[in-house]
């Protein structure tokens, strides 16, 4: 899958900025998408395109357990978040709800990818291709269970 990088050169992007608390009462997924990243990047909703990727630093999605966070990103069109590391509840919400792929990248990839770069991701091959810069990066392979849940299409479709 191909898409463009929206890069935030920042660690600890928390769920309060991904989807501010005042919108927790909303449960219409398209409505939530309108407020995605509002606390960090008020222009996000107008610039995000279907198939884009977010690229960020360590501990992405820390804070609250709100599934609204991966939902808002997913319904904005984000197919994967590429980060140095993820907070645990965001990670499992993204996978179990089949909203987006949380992909762990290394420092080299993080430093190399610029805002707007076109990326091609292959989960099967564990590779990320930067088509703009003509570079290849590795991604951390998913653990066995996570891989199976992703292939199944979410926790409810996975048969233990």
């Amino acid at each position, binding site marked *: 899958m191909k898409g463009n990088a929206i890069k935030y050169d920042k660690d*600890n992007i*928390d769920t*309060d*900025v991904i989807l*501010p*608390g*005042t919108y*927790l*009462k*909303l*449960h219409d997924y398209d409505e939530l998408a309108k407020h995605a990243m509002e*606390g*960090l990047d008020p222009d996000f909703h107008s610039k995000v395109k279907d198939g884009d990727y977010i690229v960020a630093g*360590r*501990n992405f999605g*820390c*804070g*609250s*357990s*709100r*599934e*609204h966070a991966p939902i808002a990103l997913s319904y904005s069109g984000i197919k994967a978040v590429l980060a140095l*590391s993820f*907070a*645990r*509840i965001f990670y*499992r*919400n993204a996978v*179990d*709800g089949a909203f987006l792929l949380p992909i762990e990248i290394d420092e080299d990839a993080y430093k190399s990818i610029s805002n707007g770069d076109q990326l091609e991701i292959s989960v099967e091959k564990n590779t990320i291709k930067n088509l703009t810069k003509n570079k290849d990066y590795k991604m951390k392979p998913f*653990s*066995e*269970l996570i891989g199976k849940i992703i292939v199944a299409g*979410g*926790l*409810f479709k996975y048969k*233990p």
Partner: protein
Amino acid sequence: MNITEKILARASGKNNVSPDDVVFANVDKAMIHDVSGPGVIKVFEKLAKQGISVDKLWDPSKIWVAEDHFVPSADQVSAENIVQLSKFTKKYGIEKHFKYGMGQYGICHTLSHEEAMVLPGEAYVGGDSHTNTTGALGAFACGLGHTDMAYVLLNGKIWFKVPETYYFKLNGKLSEHVMAKDFILRIIGDIGTEGCAYRAMQFGGTGINEMSVEERLTLTNMTTEAGAKNGIIAPDQKIFDYLGARGAKNFTPVYDDANNEYAKIFEYEASELEPLVAKPYSPENVAAARDISSIELDKAYIGSCTGAKLEDLRAVAKILKGRKVKIRTEILPAAISIYKKALDEGLVSIFLDAGVTIGPPTCGACCGAHMGVLAKDEVCVSTTNRNFPGRMGHVESKTYLASPLVAAASAVTGKITDPRDLK
């Protein structure tokens, strides 16, 4: 094995588990509230469309429901969520639904201990990140999202990767001006908000033995802020007395095996701890209250599962007795039962005489929902647990996290104040 591992082994029907093992654990109790509940209902609607049966829950007697984030209903949308939640519990036969305006209700994590909803040795999950709080009772307590909670409500089980455990040992007894909040802020300041990511945080030592049940709950509550999967404390007689007084019986406490080893041990001396604050915009951004006493404040917020338990209110009253607040100050007891005890003990009069506004139990402004959210550039000292940008309102408001003693002393002076420096 340690406590966390033993509970997860028992819950998943295994004799032994080790860190990084993936298990499907049968849970003993599950909780949803007015944010995660409607989220679960939405997942149920999606499942029904896909032909997956949502006719029956796994065990309605093990599921309980709280109304806390947007109550009393903050607006029409919140009111509709509450109506939806009530229809849900009625339809599925969930009897333990704590409704506002109908006796006991409050913040879910506070009810978990006030109402003895969770017991030592149990595996407990909740649709809220601060579910970790309840681990102070000696349970495995862990927060999950909507999809996972929907899965638990229907199947009674969920996957976990067994965490490795970091052990935090506190030697000695906390001094009069230092609270559990200062200890956990010290830890998060030292290890960072990712310092215990995916791990269990276990607390022990003489300092923990000396600590009251409610103070221990402050520690486990904020393990979430260090990224932890769960926080846990070996249950002792104080826990048994506390739960016994609330009608709990028939439970099996779990303890570390004699040959248990922790992945890492951190040791702290109670005598070396002092009143702290976490500055904007992270719980790890810790400073001594004395070192930032020039910070001027607009508001003090005393509320939440972290900082509005009965002992928190007693600490605040100790400071506010005979004094007036200099800045807007709100106190929102974390549950009706705590509100009533505060009233009976005369704390409410002390607060009103000091000029404080008292609100109903609610998560309220802690999560930027309602009941005193912050405007642009407003500066607040708060007994809550998070201070990310926009957490309590406008993205450019500023929250300083502090103990109830520091928050109350700061309310009196209008600046960040170490309670020892209050005249």
